[in-house]
């Protein structure tokens, strides 16, 4: 079964990735993508974001992405293809930054939940960070998840 996991500094090509995880028996794909938000309503800070600067510890990040894919396969054995891709570098509002796609024979096989699990786990254990740059200056965004032994 095709599994793609990758840190890239190039544009995420959804059609090419989808083609790579589509098998003869595939009839459904659930795709999550996240993009840079240009406006965030929040107190104490201007709402505008100029850009995000992403950084990854690439060899560990790709190993952890592979681990997330293995966790998906264990929980949803009907999933056929999996793609987990994070773009790094300077990314402007509206730009897709991440893509998680899962394929299966039918939509009722868990593909929606599998893609959701993929993005949630990426945000917990894959070593990637982003710095927000806007009118108030720049600041690293920090998550709040603390991995346990074996994660």
């Amino acid at each position, binding site marked *: 079964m095709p599994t793609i996991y990758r840190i890239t500094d190039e544009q995420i090509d959804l059609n090419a990735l989808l083609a790579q995880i589509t098998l003869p028996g595939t009839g459904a794909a659930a795709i999550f993508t*996240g993009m840079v938000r240009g406006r965030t309503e929040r107190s104490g800070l201007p709402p505008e974001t100029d850009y995000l600067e*992403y*950084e*990854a*510890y690439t*060899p*560990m*990040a790709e*190993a952890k992405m592979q681990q997330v894919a293995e966790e998906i396969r264990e929980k949803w054995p009907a999933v056929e293809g999996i793609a987990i891709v*994070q773009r790094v570098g300077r990314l402007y509002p509206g730009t897709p*930054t*991440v893509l998680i796609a899962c394929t299966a024979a039918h939509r009722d096989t868990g593909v929606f939940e599998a893609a959701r699990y993929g*993005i949630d786990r*990426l*945000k*917990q*254990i*894959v*070593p*990637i*960070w*982003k*710095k927000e740059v806007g009118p108030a200056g720049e600041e*690293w*965004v*920090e*998550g*709040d*998840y*603390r*991995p*346990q*032994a074996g*994660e």
Partner: protein
Amino acid sequence: MMNKITLLFFATLKDYAGTRQTEMEIEPGTKVADLKNRLMKKFPKLEPALGTVLVSVNKEFAFDHEEIPEGAEVALFPPVSGG
């Protein structure tokens, strides 16, 4: 004989340390917690980050009681924020 390790810093830790990568010699048997203490002396600016820092040894998450093997690649970074 001292053990040689490679240290990598990411995100806020890289800013505080003022470097992305450095080599270091540690006593055999040094644990992750010992290394954090040594780093605080070597890079005093790291102190505010060491409460929440995550550590990996050879690309797996590592914890205070774990010994750091010879030749290890050790990375220090804040809780992740990808996506």
